[in-house]
């Protein structure tokens, strides 16, 4: 059995997450990935914004920073720039990272700063009770979209790719083993990395859309999942409402803190 407790602040348990929430599966995958890489807990700085998912930083035994809504990436940027030797991991929700924090998300990707973002995509604002998010699919109900969401939604992995992230992967909490691998790769990657994780929020999203409990929603994730290799042979119509999983981007690009260090070196005699 993997010893999760090594990385948990045990006196802070139980977690605030609802029964059936997928966030715990992401947490566990993340801890296994960190353990596999063999990171020293003192060398990890975990930064989050505001939301259910962002509460994670209070429970894990690293240098932890629970910031303001949407701003985890800027705080993390300051940490990374001032102490590049730290492994900086951002934990954030779909609303946190791509609504209020959308500007920071794309600019961090553009800079290609060596930060790993674990983006918990539950298609909703969980913490505040189920308001529509930039990833709520069109037509789905939310407390602020009682007649169905009239807006188009974001492909947030695609957004990171277009903005210049050097690593992007999408996984689901149904497939925790691949998810762990994506997170491991993302942390190892020198550059801005994103792992978008599809995770169910039965409380604020599932119930309103009659998607069943957490287990049923995870089962649905399995049915909707199409691995990238298979998706490449499918038409856009066939891929409607599907979740394409896998490593979507893995490229080498100059990394920002390295670039800046080189600039500093130029002035050293």
């Amino acid at each position, binding site marked *: 059995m993997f010893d999760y407790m090594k990385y948990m*602040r045990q006196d*802070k348990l139980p977690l605030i997450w609802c029964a059936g929430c997928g966030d715990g599966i992401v947490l566990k995958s993340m801890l296994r990935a960190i353990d596999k890489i063999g990171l020293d*807990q*003192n*060398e990890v*700085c975990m*930064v989050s914004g505001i939301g259910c998912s962002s509460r994670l*930083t*209070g429970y894990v*035994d*690293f*240098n*932890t*920073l*629970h*910031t*303001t809504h949407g*701003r985890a*990436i*800027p*705080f*993390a*940027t*300051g*940490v*990374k*720039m*001032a*102490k590049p*030797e*730290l492994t900086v991991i951002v934990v954030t929700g779909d609303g946190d990272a791509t609504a209020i924090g959308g*500007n*920071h998300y794309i*600019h961090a990707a553009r800079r290609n700063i060596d930060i790993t973002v674990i983006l918990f995509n539950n298609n909703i604002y969980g913490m505040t009770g189920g308001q529509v998010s930039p990833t709520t699919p069109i037509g789905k109900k939310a407390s602020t979209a009682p007649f169905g969401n009239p807006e188009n939604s974001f492909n947030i992995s695609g957004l990171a790719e277009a903005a210049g992230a050097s690593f992007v992967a999408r996984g689901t909490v149904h497939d925790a083993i691949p998810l762990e691998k994506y997170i491991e790769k993302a942390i190892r990657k020198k550059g801005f990395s994103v792992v978008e994780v599809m995770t169910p929020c039965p409380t604020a999203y599932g119930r309103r859309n009659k998607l069943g409990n957490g287990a049923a929603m995870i089962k649905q994730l399995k049915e909707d999942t199409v691995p990238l290799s298979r998706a490449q042979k499918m038409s856009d119509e066939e891929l409607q409402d599907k979740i394409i999983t896998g490593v979507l981007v893995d490229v080498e690009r100059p990394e920002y803190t390295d670039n*800046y260090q080189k*600039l*500093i070196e*130029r*002035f*050293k005699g």
Partner: protein
Amino acid sequence: MSKEPRPDVGKNVRVMTGNEACAEGALVAGLYFYAGYPITPSSEIAEVLSERLPQIGGKFMQMEDEISAMGAIIGASLTGAKAMTATSGPGFSLKQENLGYASIAEVPCVVVNVMRGGPSTGLPTLPAQGDVMQARWGTHGDHPIIAVAPTSVLEVFMLTIRAFNLAERYRVPVILLMDEIIGHTSEKVILPDAATIEIWNRQAPTVGPDEYLPYKITESGVPPMAKFGEGYRFHVTGLVHDETGFPTNNSVQINKFLGRLNSKIDRHADEIITVTSDLQENATVGVFAYGSTARSAKRAVMLARQEGARVDFINPTVLWPFPEKQVSSLAERVSKIIVPEMNLGQMAHEVEWAARGRADIVKINRIDGEPIKPDDIVKAIVENA
């Protein structure tokens, strides 16, 4: 311009603007990380630092907005770095939420606001002092803050260093309020020898990680501060927290924490507040002025005295915490206090409160982008003497 060497231009004699002096002072104070977003009339601070910081091994970042700049300096400060951002009105408004974060999480940092006319985009190139109340109350909730206001280029240099010192000693964001006039005025300054300048650093924990309480209630009211990445593994949050740093909803713990947080600056007010006074025996009228307006006021006081008026002059260089004692004793001495400011009377309210009816307040206000002229103040002094 003549290329002849000028006898007075030595190592420490320089001609510089307020914005340049601010950058220079920050470097002397030990600035390591700057993040900002361009805005008139503050941009020169960023420009100077973008050139100087990498040359001394520091870091400069132009962020995507003022919100992220404020967030980034907090992140950097948590690793132990001295960090600063600079902006003007619109950007200062954007920084407010994260400024409150620095306040509650007690993260030392310096926020420069080179004030311009407002509200909104307002008067981008013209001076104002309209953000003095925002500096105190701009972010939501009761919170500690320090704000300093220099009146000359040399004072910008000195007060920037002091801003860092205060931020470090009290674990608080310190706001440096300049205005467009001082930011852009070139003056000859004689900088003090670096060796004579006192630099304060945050107090490091004296206990090991096992015993460390990041928000411990200490005698001074300021808990020692560990750095991220040095074995302490503490938690930092903008939620109200207890001594351990973790969120709490317990009213006893809430009161303990917010009580300490909100009293730590007032408790040390005497050590923090600096006021330049020029008092005259048997004065009947006083002038209270700050920032660039204090320069006009200083001249006005001199001119009015030549005309026979008996005038006291006080110029606070720390606005928050408010120099209540100094204003109170001024109110004991004179029957009227003239408060010139480039806003509609923001500090005049504070002066009135501190005077508590012992002296009448006479306001001189301008918000048209024009400085208050010495003559206008002389007139008020003579009329009220």
